[in-house]
């Protein structure tokens, strides 16, 4: 079967292809079983579809695709915080009545509200919640949990920002009985994710046993323990530069208006967007769903 020859060829170029795409492995195996029984004429379509999902840039063709992509991220975040609040390994840090538990509960509530809002906007087009999210070692201890949280929130900010220009500016659906501008709602979620990210960063800074020396904003492309791709360039890099980007609209901002600024300051002053394929790859790299 040529399909497996193709995969073999890809693996020569990209040895990690199957590791990065573990979740696709069963799908590809199933595809193999099916294609053995299928007419050859139909096979290229099925194969093309599988590869489009597996290794190509995923295309969000319309507003519903964008909303379902956002919904997946919100499902993930909501489940992440729900699991954290229930994790025995975090109970000593997220004690009832503590500021930390209050903050995590608040963030979880916001993510639940986002899920509900997006589901209402999508109606019958809403994708179902994945059966489960496995966050691996994320809840093994409090600092690790906060590091994961920072990664998800900073990624969330980049994800919404990356889609802002793809949402039609004139789409005004009725959601929950109210006429809303879809782009405005997306921006309102976007800034809430940024608030979450800022506060999680502050919590990491304030951790009793030697906090991370970082602020609520992203300095250069430093993750301070969060996966590097969260702060790296997306695809294409010219459209989605890394968080350490110093140039906006062709102007390098370390020298502007008669003043000079450090690379740290300039990178902090602007957040950068990410494409959906890179975002989903980041999620898949730390979460099984």
């Amino acid at each position, binding site marked *: 079967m040529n399909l497996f020859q193709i995969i073999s060829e890809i693996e020569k170029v990209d040895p990690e292809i199957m590791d990065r795409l573990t979740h696709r492995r069963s799908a590809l195996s199933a595809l193999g079983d099916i294609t053995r029984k299928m007419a050859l004429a139909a096979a290229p379509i099925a194969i093309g579809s599988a590869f489009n999902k597996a290794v190509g840039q995923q295309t969000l063709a319309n507003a519903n695709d964008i909303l379902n992509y956002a919904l997946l991220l919100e499902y993930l975040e909501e489940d992440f915080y729900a699991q954290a609040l229930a994790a025995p390994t975090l109970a000593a840090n997220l004690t009832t009545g503590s*500021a930390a538990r*209050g*903050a995590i509960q*608040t*963030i979880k*509530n*916001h*993510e*639940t*509200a*986002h899920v509900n*809002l997006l589901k209402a906007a999508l109606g019958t087009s809403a994708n179902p919640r994945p059966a489960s999210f496995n966050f691996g070692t994320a809840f093994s201890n409090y600092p690790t949990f906060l590091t994961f949280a920072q990664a998800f929130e900073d990624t969330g*900010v980049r994800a919404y*920002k990356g889609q*802002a*220009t793809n949402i039609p*500016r004139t789409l005004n659906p009725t959601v929950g009985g109210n006429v809303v*501008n879809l*782009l*405005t*709602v997306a*921006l*309102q*979620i*976007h*800034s*809430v*994710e*940024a*608030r979450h*990210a*800022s*506060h999680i960063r*502050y919590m990491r800074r304030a951790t009793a046993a030697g906090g991370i020396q970082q*602020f*609520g*904003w992203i300095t250069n492309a430093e993750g301070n323990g969060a996966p590097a791709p969260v702060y790296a360039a997306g695809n294409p890099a010219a459209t989605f530069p890394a968080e350490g980007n110093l140039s*906006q*609209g062709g*102007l390098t*901002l370390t020298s*502007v*208006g008669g*003043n000079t*600024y450090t690379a740290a*300051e*300039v990178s*902090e*002053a*602007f*957040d*950068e*967007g990410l494409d959906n394929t890179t975002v989903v790859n980041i999620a898949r790299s730390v979460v099984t769903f």
Partner: protein
Amino acid sequence: MHDNSFLARTLHRRSFFRVAGAGAAASALVLAGCAKDDTPNPGTFTQQLVIATKDSLDNNILNYAYLLEQLEAAFYDKVVATPPADLLPGELAYLTDLRDHELIHREYLKYALGTNVYDNSFVTPLTFDFSSLTLTTRAGVWAAAQLLENIGVAAYNGAGKHLTAPFLKLLGKIASVEARHATLVQELVQPGSWATGIGTTGLDAAKTPLEVVALIQPFIPVPISTDFLPTT
């Protein structure tokens, strides 16, 4: 907010403009004859700050953003130059970072607007009026910062839909940084209050340019013209 009498006065100013032939100063700080009691009185003049023109909605929104960044930068500049005595350890570093971010935002928007920047022909830059704020105490400074940062977030959330893609992309990069600022500042004002204002909807505020203009008017020594600013 603007009642009918205000709108009537605005119209009056504009008609005076045409008569006076001063309409060419469309994107500058201009003089407009208008008596306080709406009675023409050549002896009394008030100034108006004009940031928007009929020509380009993108430029109008970018100028609006530029004014907001000017305001924030001027605020932090003043505070960092004369910090309150009771700042806690580390807080001056926060304020300095915040100032630098706003300065970079301001200078970038000025660059992006080029000759379309509203104060292009100003002899001296607009001077902001912070007399309504208490900047001699830590509490006063952080409360003021909270006000300004949250205005910025709500302004950008509300204005995004008026921008074409390249400028929406740009403002999105700044908006989330303002939200990061606002969150820190709220926590410094009152520990545990970082999320106050988001509410059960999980959504941040979004305000129209006219709502925002009303909120920042106390810091600007002349009335801001709302002509050509979007009403939604």
